[in-house]
C-alpha cells in the first residue's frame, strides 16, 4: 500500500473539530455510518454477505474443504481467514503479495471468530483422525472508504450464519446449515484529532493516529483486542471506548439477528 500524503491542514482541521466534539462528516463521536447488509449475494460461495458502511463496501464468502485433522486434535475441524485488499478497492492500493495490513486484518477477524467459540470445531469432524471440514473465510474489499476491519468482521459472521456445509458435493452425507451458536462482533475506534471515534472514514484514518479493535461476543465477553499503528492511549480512554463498544455490539447483534 502506498503511504498516502497527509496534508497538514487535514490534521489541523480534524483536531479543531474534535475540540468542538464534532466530526468531519457531521457524525457524533460514537455514530456509525449508514449500514446495509446483504445476505448470500454470491451463489458460488457456501455462505456470503455484502456489507456497506457509507462508501466502504466489502464481500465475504465462505468455502469449505476437507482436510486431515491435525494429529494433536484428531476430532476437530479447522478455520482459516484471509483478507484480500486488492487494487480494485482504492487508488492507494498496489498489486503484489499480501500487504502487512491485509494480513493483520485477516488475523484480527480470525481471532474474534475463533476465540468466541461461535464455531463448534468438534462438530466439523467427519471421521476422527481422517477427515474434517476446514471452513475458509475470504474477506474481499471492493471499495475502501475506511474501517475495513469492522466491515470484514461483520460480513464474516453474517456469512457464517448463513452458510451451508456442502456435504453432498464432497460425498460425506447431506448438506446442513453450519451451526453458529454465538455472535462475535468487532468495533473499531480510531484516534482522530486527539480523541477516539467509532467507524472512522478513510479521511479520518489518513488524518488520524492509532486504532483499537475490540471483539465482543455474547454477554459482553471480550474475545480479541488489537492496537494498531503508532500512538499512545490511556487506561481511561480504553475504558471509554470499551463502554461504547458494549453498547454498539448489542445494537449490531440485534441487527444481525433480525436479518
Amino acid at each position, binding site marked *: 500500500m502506498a503511504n498516502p500524503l497527509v496534508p497538514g491542514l487535514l490534521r489541523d482541521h480534524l483536531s479543531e473539530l474534535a475540540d468542538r466534539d464534532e466530526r468531519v462528516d457531521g457524525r457524533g463521536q460514537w455514530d456509525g455510518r449508514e449500514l446495509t447488509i446483504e445476505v448470500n449475494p454470491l*451463489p*458460488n460461495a457456501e455462505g456470503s454477505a455484502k456489507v456497506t458502511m457509507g*462508501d466502504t463496501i466489502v464481500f465475504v464468502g465462505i468455502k469449505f474443504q476437507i482436510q486431515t485433522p491435525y494429529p494433536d486434535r484428531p476430532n476437530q475441524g479447522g478455520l482459516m481467514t484471509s483478507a484480500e485488499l*486488492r487494487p480494485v478497492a482504492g487508488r492507494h492500493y498496489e498489486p503484489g503479495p*499480501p500487504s502487512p495490513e491485509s494480513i493483520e486484518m485477516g488475523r484480527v477477524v480470525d481471532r474474534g471468530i475463533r476465540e468466541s467459540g461461535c464455531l463448534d470445531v468438534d462438530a466439523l469432524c467427519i471421521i476422527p483422525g481422517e477427515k474434517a471440514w476446514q471452513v475458509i473465510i*475470504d474477506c*474481499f474489499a471492493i471499495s475502501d472508504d475506511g474501517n475495513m476491519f469492522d466491515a470484514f468482521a461483520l460480513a464474516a459472521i453474517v456469512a457464517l450464519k448463513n452458510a451451508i456445509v456442502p456435504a453432498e*458435493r464432497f460425498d460425506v452425507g447431506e448438506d446442513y446449515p453450519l451451526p453458529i451458536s454465538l455472535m462475535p462482533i468487532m468495533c473499531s475506534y480510531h484516534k482522530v484529532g486527539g480523541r477516539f471515534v467509532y467507524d472512522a472514514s478513510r479521511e479520518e484514518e489518513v488524518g488520524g493516529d492509532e486504532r483499537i479493535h475490540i471483539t465482543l461476543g455474547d454477554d459482553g465477553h471480550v474475545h480479541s483486542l488489537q492496537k494498531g499503528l503508532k500512538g499512545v492511549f490511556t487506561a481511561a480512554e480504553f475504558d471509554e471506548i470499551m463502554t461504547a463498544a458494549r453498547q454498539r455490539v448489542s445494537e449490531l447483534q440485534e441487527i444481525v439477528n433480525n436479518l
Partner: protein
Amino acid sequence: MGGYGDVQMIDEDGKRVDGRGPGDLRPIEIEVGVVPVADGSASIRWGANYAIATVYGPMEAHPRKISRQERAVLDVRYNMAPFSTTDRMRPGFNRRSREISKVTSDALESVVQLELYPRSKIRVEIEVLCAEAGTRCVGLTAASVALADAGIPMTDMVVSVASGKINGVVVCDLNKEEDNYGEADLPMGVLPNTGDLVFLQMDGDLSPEEFQQAWDYNVNAAQAVHEIMVAALADRYGGGE
C-alpha cells in the same frame, strides 16, 4: 474441451438446458458507478456471473520504469475472487489470470486513446466475484463500461461475447453446464460501431460452417450487449434524448 457427446444438452425443439434458443444470450444486467471511491466502475451480472470493474487514473505511473514518454500505460488486472468458483480458488499468482489480463489489456489498448496522457498510467481492475462460464468476456465488457464511466477517451467500447459447440450444435454464450460438455469455445471482442475485432481466442473443434455460425452469433450478440451497456450508462448519467 471435454467432448462428452452422449450427454443430451439440447432437446428435440432445439431448446437448451436453460430454455434458451441456440443464438440467445443469458440475461445481462449492468450497473454503472457501483464503487464510490473509483474514478469509474461498473458491475455486471451475466447469467450467474457477477463481476466488478474499476478504473483509476490517469495517474502518475509507478514504478517510474513502466512509464512511457509518448503515451499512458494501461495496467489491466483480471482476477477471480477465492469464493467465485465451486472449489475455492487460491489467491495469488495464476497463469490463467495473467494471460486473460494480457489479452484484455491488448483489446482495450486498441480503443483507448493512450497518446493523450503521456507518462501516466490508467489502472483497470476486473474482479470476478461469481464465475459461471465466459468470465473473460464478462470482465472485458465490464471494463469497457468502467472506462467510459471514468471519462477515458476511447474510439469505441469493446463488447465481448463467446459462442461454442455442444452436442454438435453451435450455440451462443455457453453457460456452465454447457461449458462442461462443450466441444469448442470462440470468445471474441467486437467493436460495435465498426464490427472490427480486437480480441479473439478459440479452442476446440469447429467445421468451417460451424465456425461461421459461431462467428455470426458473436457479432449479432455483441450488438445486443452494446445496447445494454449504453442503457446502463444512460441510466447513470441521465437519458438519451
